[in-house]
């Protein structure tokens, strides 16, 4: 006698656990009035370098902090700590991306309402982080000029999960014969309308514009939240 086979219909999001925690985080961040910016890129595109610079400069005018994810080592946190801002390393071990629960755990005991900006540096990886919402307000995807103009075409999903593209190490553009037009075209092809900023931590190019951009996005978010609270 063979058993009878039948089909049960279900509808369950596989990432439901992460999405629930991320939604909860987003609510906490909004309640505390902290604007949360995450950074994704391939290894070595310049996340930590840009973040160190950003923390150092923003610290002069507001309250900033950062969490940084890496498979191993506390090196990036040590570099970021030079900015004097509160920084915490998340060692992900074998996990190749940050998940909302890791952020939640790392923030235990933090007074979020004493922060204006919180930055999250993801593990250097152009694939896996795209599936995981971290509750951030803004996701930046970085690509350096040394990686080639076709990065967006190779990793369309990560570009699609991000809000803004940063082209980093722009000081090296000439040396590596970086084709900015092609890069912009490729970014627009995978994510039409995406904002693109060029930066260099070495030469300082684009850094003022980047900070202006962050301040403006934070102000926009506060206006939206303020309007929502008033109704």
């Amino acid at each position, binding site marked *: 006698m063979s*058993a*009878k*086979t*039948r*089909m*049960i*219909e*279900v*509808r*369950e*999001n*596989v*990432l*439901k*656990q992460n999405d629930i925690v991320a939604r909860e985080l987003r609510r906490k961040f909004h309640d505390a009035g902290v604007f949360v910016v995450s950074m994704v890129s391939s290894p070595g595109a310049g996340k930590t370098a840009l973040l160190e610079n950003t923390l150092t400069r923003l610290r002069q005018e507001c309250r900033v902090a950062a969490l940084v994810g890496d498979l191993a080592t506390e090196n990036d946190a040590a570099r970021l700590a030079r900015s004097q801002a509160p920084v915490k390393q998340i060692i992900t071990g074998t*996990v*190749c*991306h940050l998940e909302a629960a890791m952020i939640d755990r790392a923030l235990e005991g933090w007074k979020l309402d004493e922060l204006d900006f919180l930055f999250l540096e993801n593990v250097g990886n152009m*694939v*896996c982080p*795209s*599936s995981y919402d971290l509750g951030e307000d803004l996701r930046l995807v970085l690509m350096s000029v040394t990686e080639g103009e076709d990065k967006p*075409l190779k990793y*369309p*999903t*990560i570009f*699609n*999960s991000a809000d803004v593209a940063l082209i980093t190490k722009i000081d090296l553009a000439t040396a590596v014969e970086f084709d900015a037009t092609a890069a912009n075209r490729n970014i*627009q*092809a*995978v*994510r*039409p*309308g*995406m904002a693109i900023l060029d930066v260099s931590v070495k030469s300082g190019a684009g850094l003022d514009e980047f900070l202006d951009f962050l301040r403006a996005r934070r102000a926009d978010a506060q206006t939206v939240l303020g309007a929502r609270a008033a109704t």
Partner: protein
Amino acid sequence: MHELSIAMSIVELAQEEADRRGDIRIKAVHLRLGALSGVVKDALFSSYAMACDDTPLEGSRLVVEDVPVIIFCKQCDGQRPVHSTQMFCCADCGTPTGEIVQGKELLVVGLEVEE
């Protein structure tokens, strides 16, 4: 490679669902997988077998339905497929658009069970 942790979540979800429904054995799990889910299908298949080891789902199959990207095209005033994930424009009229309607799915939609 995050497919193993995704596969483990799938196995866990399926098992919970089965437990809720009593004495049944899962023969196959049906999954809807969006082209923008960030999950690589081949890697998911091999991870699934691993994730099933030493669980009641050992020996079960993973059946994947690919979900293409659908965007909302203002020009056509309707939902349309995209040209490709490398070229986010309306497959009908070519207008670039980022308004995604479908394609990020990672959903367990069915269980083939034996009772």
